[in-house]
């Protein structure tokens, strides 16, 4: 356990981050006000300065997480060696997924635990919320395959209880949170801990065992969250995200862990909970009123973390725990779909932020989540207010006094606006540069192909994310508007696969963004032509949005965006791929009594 979780340490980290972020926000707003009000103060200048404050504060707050991550102590992982004295359920919730691929993950994790000789301490429960009967029938067939594969017949014949369970709910009440709750209410009494996964999660046996040991060693610990690494990405978009998650996220997570102390996060998967703590504190009610603000809580994980903390349990993020993996979206459309769901979930937290007894930090986390989705609106408002201010700015008066002999030139404050823009850009780039320098100093850069490759990956990711950002901003703005207008996004199943898009698909998703880009450029050209240079970095990506969406879904290959998992495939992922290949050759329908099914060696 590498990070400080003491309340005073967390308070100091929060105070430092808050102080610097507010300071930078005020500084940027003051500087901008001097520029904006150079031709006389108008109401719109105040609005623009306020927007600069909010957006700069928000960027600085994010940057401070990386600074905190870099300055907080990072000891090498000190894994425990205590005996396992508890029982753990490994929960794999599924919802209209490809059962062969998902169940092979279960098999791979069991292989990993078997290698360590501790498999007896762990049971696997596949908790299906699949509503499609055809997929449900496939799940049953593949579960039978998994059962035979993991030698459960022999176990049962010896009078032992099976270690693999499958349950499918006819109605997916409460979605994933309801699915997990149903398990606890049915079988929770049999287990000390539960490892909650997603259908795309994979974890090394060693990591799972270490999590159990840490839970055993800290009786006050209610939830232990790992930082999952994204793996298996193939597209330009997916691999850029995978690189960013592998290269930057550990430092950001370290900073987050330092700031939140024992009021940590729950990201819904790749986390272990103490069954008793979770059962006592985390049964979620439906919120009153209709969706999107009422009904089932979509982003249940944040609420569950807050409820555990409310009940006095520690919730901790241990970023040093390696061997925790997930998959990410492969293209911008899938990312936007997921983001739409997260947006609704986070905005729904407006209803929960005032829940009785919550810790102050938990309320702040809700506020932070809400702000992260509202922030794009502030950027849009900032852009619009600048266009308005420039278009309505009074003509300079060179002879304000009657019978004045020499003209008075207005004070040129452009350098201040440039200063703010450079500062804002710096807040975006500075953390990444610091992380690169830190990686070089610590030698971590070798895992990403060395200094030159990592620098190339960083630059490519920076350019790609700068082009993507205005397009994402439009999607986020639309998502917020939809939620505010009461449109429920539902609960679409995750799209898996290589994610490659055709141009018509990209165009269908991005034409309206392109239209907005044309409108913004035309308005700027007509009413504020001297702002054109400032608007181009936003306007051009919007105009070519369909092309960007299409191009970023194309395959990408190393060395750019190289990650440690691509250099040396983790054992559990190797096992998973081997099992999927093996199962591909074995139709599940041939599983008959006494059939010889190839047992996967541990």
């Amino acid at each position, binding site marked *: 356990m590498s990070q400080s979780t003491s309340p005073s340490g967390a308070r100091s980290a929060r105070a430092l981050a808050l102080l610097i972020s507010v300071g930078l926000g005020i500084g940027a707003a003051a500087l901008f006000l001097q520029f904006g009000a150079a031709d006389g103060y108008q109401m719109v200048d105040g609005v623009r300065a306020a927007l600069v404050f909010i957006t700069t504060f928000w960027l600085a707050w994010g940057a401070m997480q990386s600074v905190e991550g870099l300055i907080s102590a990072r000891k090498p992982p000190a894994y425990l060696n205590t005996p396992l004295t508890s029982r753990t359920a490994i929960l794999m919730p599924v919802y209209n997924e490809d059962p062969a691929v998902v169940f092979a993950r279960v098999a791979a994790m069991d292989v990993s635990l078997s290698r360590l000789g501790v498999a007896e301490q762990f049971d696997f*429960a596949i908790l299906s919320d699949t509503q499609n009967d055809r997929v449900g029938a496939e799940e049953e067939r593949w579960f039978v395959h998994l059962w035979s594969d993991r030698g459960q017949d022999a176990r049962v014949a010896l009078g032992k209880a099976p270690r693999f369970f499958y349950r499918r709910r006819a109605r997916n009440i409460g979605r994933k949170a309801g699915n997990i709750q149903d398990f606890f209410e049915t079988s*929770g009494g049999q287990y000390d801990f539960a490892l909650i996964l997603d259908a795309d999660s994979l974890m090394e046996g060693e990591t799972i065992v270490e999590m159990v040991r840490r839970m055993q060693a800290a009786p006050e610990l209610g939830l232990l969250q790992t930082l999952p690494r994204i793996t298996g990405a193939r597209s330009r978009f997916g691999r850029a995200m995978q690189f960013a998650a592998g290269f930057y996220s550990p430092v950001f997570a370290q900073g987050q862990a330092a700031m939140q102390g024992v009021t940590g996060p729950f990201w819904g998967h790749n986390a272990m909970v103490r069954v008793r703590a979770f059962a*006592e504190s985390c049964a979620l*009610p439906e919120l009153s009123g209709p969706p999107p603000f009422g009904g089932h809580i979509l982003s249940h994980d944040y609420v569950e973390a807050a409820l555990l903390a409310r009940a006095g349990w520690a919730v901790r993020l241990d970023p040093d725990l390696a061997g925790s993996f997930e998959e990410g979206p492969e293209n911008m459309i899938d990312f936007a779909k997921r983001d739409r769901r997260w947006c609704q979930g986070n905005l729904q937290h407006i209803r929960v932020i005032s829940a009785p007894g919550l810790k102050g930090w938990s309320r702040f986390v809700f506020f932070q989540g809400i702000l992260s989705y509202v922030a794009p609106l502030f950027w849009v408002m900032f852009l619009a207010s600048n266009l308005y201010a420039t278009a309505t700015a009074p003509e300079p008066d060179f002879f304000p006094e009657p019978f004045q002999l020499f003209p008075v030139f207005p004070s040129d404050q452009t350098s201040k606006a440039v200063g703010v823009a450079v500062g804002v850009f710096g807040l975006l780039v500075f953390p990444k540069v610091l992380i690169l320098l830190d990686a070089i100093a610590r030698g971590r850069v070798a895992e990403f192909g060395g200094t030159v490759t990592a620098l190339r990956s960083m630059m490519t990711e920076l350019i790609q994310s700068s082009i993507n950002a205005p397009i994402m901003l439009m999607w986020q703005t639309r998502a917020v508007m939809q939620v505010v207008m009461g449109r429920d996004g539902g609960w679409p199943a995750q799209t898996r696969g290589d994610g490659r898009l055709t141009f018509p698909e990209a165009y269908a998703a991005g034409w309206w963004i392109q239209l907005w880009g044309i409108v913004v450029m035309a308005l700027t050209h007509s009413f504020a032509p001297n702002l054109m240079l400032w608007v181009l970095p936003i306007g051009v990506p919007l105009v070519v949005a369909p092309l960007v969406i299409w191009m970023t879904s194309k395959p990408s290959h190393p060395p750019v965006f190289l990650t440690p998992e691509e250099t040396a495939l983790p054992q559990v992922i190797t096992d998973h791929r081997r099992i999927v290949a093996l199962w591909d050759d074995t139709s599940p329908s041939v599983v008959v009594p006494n059939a010889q099914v190839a047992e996967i060696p541990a």
Partner: protein
Amino acid sequence: MGTHMMMQGSLSDAAQDARARAIGTRHAEILRAARLPHAPLAMPRQVIERPLAEAVAQTPFLSRLIGVFASGIGRTARGR
């Protein structure tokens, strides 16, 4: 020859039916054995909704802060 082929066909169909039944029975047995263990745990429903005004009133610091802020606006509005 035609009758022979038909007989072979129906024998094959019967064998396939028997095999499908065997697979079905086997699947049902496994799914029965793989039901979740019965060890229920009570999960008391949590209270998470409270009107914001009530939350503010019950948080003295927040209440005072908002009071000071509101009266500040009032004084400014009256031009003092």
